[in-house]
């Protein structure tokens, strides 16, 4: 070897330093990666070769012993051989074409080549340098050619010109050292090899370290961006679309879509690069990849949609257009709220399994955003609704002429509207004051206990209030659903109504009376006439007289019905102790003949413990008789009429049911109106005044009771009457 040029020496020193740097970086960064391991191996021998070469260069200057010289030559040769093998191994690994047990074989070759070289050095065969060189040449020829073969065979796979250039330079440099040692180009060839090594190093470092690092930071950044973008906003459709866009951008997908779950259906609600017509496309749970993912909660990766998915298409034409597909569930609080699907076109990039993990990451964020968004939207809608309802209510309450008051459980005022303040002369001083102090006695119910009990059992209580010559009807109802939190009272000014009602009653009564005298005259004279014509025996006249008589009779019954009603409404009631059993059985006694004639069975059902109540027994019996009579009249032949009485809380219940013609739904509310029956279909043939039920209602009302009717047209009708029971007698037997 000749003394080297100073330039070559400096270059070599630089390369040695750089290589050592690379070696350290690679080993420190990740020693477990195969590429890194082979790269380190390669670099180590490169270093050995370079250092040996450098030392051999400076050996003559140091005038050292031949032993040192032979050591440096040994290092150089061993490095050369090792680098050849290492270069080949590295290239094979980078191209990813290594066969099985590649690592072991590599180790074997290195041990063989380097070991043989070292053995030669150690056995002091150095004088015959040609032998060493021939060994080097042997290894170089084999592994250099193998390296070139790999490049030639697989160069399309890598598409990195710089790497291939570097490898070629390295191999070329090594080859150069065999040309002719006497030409003095040994140092040049080492330099060329070293530059090639540097190029390889750069590429490897870039591929293995810098790009992954950059990618990771880019992912972090885009993850951050996505998070910020989607969590800082409410999940409107725009945000869903943005999530879809980001997901596409992130994975390099050709299209993305978000399905959300509604009532066991998946609906495509946001799309990116999918046809607009696909928006709102629906899938059942379990249908399509999206449906499968939603029902199994497992992410799904399909390398090729057409090949790997044989079920129902996620979207129309999916089999024709979808390539690689990833679908991940959107899960919030263990519930699937939808799925996120990334699609690569048939010609597009292939997804990898790692992409699925990325998409899952995004899906987690998106799920949270969507769920919160939904919650927020729901709450916002509710709040808005509540606010507007509140406002409406408040406006209604303030603008109404009806006084409205609300009190808490302790009867302290909590709300009054202007009308109430005016009527009761309240001002802000009275706010939260107890109504027993704030309101005049006349405005309060006579019997608090009764009022409370009624509110508890029926939810409402009504009473009349006389204030300043006006009559108000006061409706009291509960505040609060589950437990009573207070009461609200609404007063209606019924002064005029009452007066009108009074005038109406008066007029009806007067008219009815005024009709009675003419009726009496007509009926009496007709009876005389009938006696006269009966003796003559003219059938036609008798028929006419009979008809007139029937019509007069009907008129009479109507008048009588109206007067009955007035009697109940005006009349004084006697206060008897009424026994439900007696009422039921006496009523049935009166109607037995009628029922038998019509072929209807009367079935009484009286509970043993049924309580008594206070009232006018004759009036009440009349009411029950009217109901049973109706039930018989409106029944079919062979029908049944049930007359049931039993206790119902603090009330006595009477239920009179038939399986007759029933009442059409739209007439049920009108049965208690006077004369309603005139309009009831199917009942035209039934005689009666149509006043019976009005009378029943009047009687029940005058007993502080309630009447209700349930009817199914064609099936039957049941009337329910409840009246307040007398306090139960204490059992004296004990």
């Amino acid at each position, binding site marked *: 070897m000749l003394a080297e040029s100073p330039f070559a020496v400096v270059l070599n020193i630089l390369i040695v330093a750089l290589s050592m740097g690379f070696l350290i970086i690679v080993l420190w960064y990740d020693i477990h990666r195969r590429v890194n391991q082979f790269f380190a191996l390669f670099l180590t021998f490169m270093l050995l070769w370079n250092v040996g070469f450098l030392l051999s260069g400076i050996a003559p200057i140091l005038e050292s012993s031949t032993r040192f010289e032979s050591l440096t030559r040994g290092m150089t040769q061993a490095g050369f051989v090792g680098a050849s093998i290492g270069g080949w191994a590295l290239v094979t690994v980078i191209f990813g074409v290594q066969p099985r047990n590649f690592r072991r074989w590599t180790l074997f070759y290195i041990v063989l080549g380097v070991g043989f070289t070292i053995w030669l050095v150690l056995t002091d065969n150095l004088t015959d340098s040609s032998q060493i060189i021939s060994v080097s040449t042997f290894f170089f020829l084999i592994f250099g050619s193998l390296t070139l073969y790999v490049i030639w065979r697989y160069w399309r796979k890598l598409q990195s010109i710089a790497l291939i250039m570097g490898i070629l330079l390295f191999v070329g440099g090594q080859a150069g050292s065999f040309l002719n040692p006497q030409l003095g180009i040994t140092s040049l060839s080492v330099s060329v090899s070293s530059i090639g090594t540097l190029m390889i190093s750069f590429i490897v470092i870039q591929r293995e370290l810098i790009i992954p690092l950059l990618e990771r930071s880019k992912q972090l950044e885009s993850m951050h961006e996505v998070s910020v973008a989607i969590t800082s906003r409410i999940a409107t459709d725009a945000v869903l679309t943005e999530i879809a866009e980001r997901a596409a951008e992130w994975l390099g997908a050709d299209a993305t879509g978000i399905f959300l779950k509604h009532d066991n259906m998946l609906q495509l609600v946001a799309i990116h690069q999918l046809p607009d017509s696909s928006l709102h496309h629906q899938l059942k749970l379990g249908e399509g990849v999206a449906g499968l993912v939603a029902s199994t909660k497992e992410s799904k990766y399909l390398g090729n949609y057409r090949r790997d998915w044989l079920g129902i298409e996620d979207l129309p034409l999916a089999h024709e257009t979808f390539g690689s597909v990833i679908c991940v569930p959107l899960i919030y609080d263990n519930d699937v709220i939808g799925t996120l699907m990334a699609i690569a076109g048939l010609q597009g990039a292939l997804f990898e399994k790692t992409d699925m993990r990325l998409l899952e990451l995004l899906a987690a964020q998106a799920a949270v955003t969507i769920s919160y968004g939904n919650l927020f939207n729901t709450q916002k809608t509710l709040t808005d609704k509540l606010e507007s309802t509140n406002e409406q209510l408040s406006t209604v309450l303030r603008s109404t002429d009806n006084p409205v008051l609300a009190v808490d459980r302790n009867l302290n005022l909590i709300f009054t509207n202007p009308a109430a303040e005016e009527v009761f002369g309240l001002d802000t001083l009275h706010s939260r004051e107890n109504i027993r102090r704030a309101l005049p006695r006349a405005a309060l119910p006579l019997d608090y206990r009764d009022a409370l009990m009624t509110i508890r059992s029926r939810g409402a209580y009504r009473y009349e209030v006389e204030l300043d010559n006006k009559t108000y009807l006061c409706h009291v109802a509960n505040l609060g659903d589950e437990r009573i939190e207070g009461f609200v009272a609404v007063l209606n000014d019924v002064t005029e109504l009452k007066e009108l009602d009074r005038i109406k009653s008066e007029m009806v*009564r007067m008219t009815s009376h005024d009709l009675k*005298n003419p009726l009496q*005259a007509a009926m009496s*004279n007709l*009876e*005389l006439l009938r006696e006269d014509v009966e003796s003559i025996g003219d059938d036609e006249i008798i028929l006419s007289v009979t008809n007139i008589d029937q019509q007069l009779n009907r008129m009479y019954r109507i008048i009588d019905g109206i007067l009955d009603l007035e009697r109940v409404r*005006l009349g004084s009631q006697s206060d008897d102790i009424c026994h439900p059993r007696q009422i039921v059985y006496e009523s049935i006694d009166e109607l037995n003949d009628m029922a038998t004639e019509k072929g209807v069975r009367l079935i009484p059902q009286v509970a043993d413990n049924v309580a008594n109540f206070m009232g006018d027994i004759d009036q009440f019996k009349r009411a029950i008789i009217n109901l049973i009579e109706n039930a018989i009249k409106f029944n079919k032949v062979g029908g049944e009429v049930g007359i049931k009485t039993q206790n119902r809380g603090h009330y006595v219940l009477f239920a009179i049911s038939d399986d007759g013609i029933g009442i059409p739904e739209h007439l049920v509310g009108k049965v208690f109106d006077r004369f309603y029956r005139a309009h009831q279909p199917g009942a035209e043939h039934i005689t009666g005044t149509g006043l019976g039920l009005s009378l029943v209602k009047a009687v029940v009302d005058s007993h502080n009771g309630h009447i209700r009717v349930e009817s199914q047209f064609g099936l039957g009708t049941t009337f329910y009457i409840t009246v307040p029971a007398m306090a139960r007698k204490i059992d004296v037997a004990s």
Partner: protein
Amino acid sequence: MNEKILIVDDELAIREALGRKLSREGYEVVLAEDGAAGLRAFHSERPALVVLDIIMSGGMNGLTVCRRIRELADTPIMMLSAQAITEDNVVEGLNAGADEYLIKPVRLNEFAARISALLRRIQLSTTDVEQIYDDGYLNVDLHRRQIYVDNKKIHLTPTEFKLLAVLMENSGRVVPQRDLLEQVWGREYVDDVYYPRVYISQLRRKIERDAANPTYILTEHRVGYRFEKQLPNSTLT
């Protein structure tokens, strides 16, 4: 028969129809068109029974005529009304002294039946029941129709008398309302439950020391009434 019956009603058609019916039944009928004419006819004709309409145009209504007749005689009076609504109206009429109160419109046959029942009641009330009761405060001679309360002779209408007689004949026993109605008023009346109520209270006012706390005629709630004899020493003046 041939009892004379006076009908007072301002409605010609009614008056005549009622009259014709009664004529056909064999009664002698006198008609009057208002209260004053009715009273005059009562004095001049001395009818066995008077039918009175309550509401009449002109100065005197039926109630007044009824009271005026009662001042003079026990003649049974049947009232007709088109105006009665509540029992109170009926009670008012009965209190004025009527024996019978019918609400218009009334059927002629029923009207005739009631007339005959009323006349029968009067005849029955003068029957042969021979009983004298005297506890020192109340003295009753059923046969002679003489009643003294606290040694003062009092006057009972025929119906009142009949009622007292039936109760005394059953003294100590409860007479159910229906029985009372049937025996005093007649079978046609068994449903007119307000008759006993009104007459009992009138009777009490006449014979009891304190009508509000009766000792002779006791009410059995919703069943009927009972006459209770008093011990002579319970008499107080």
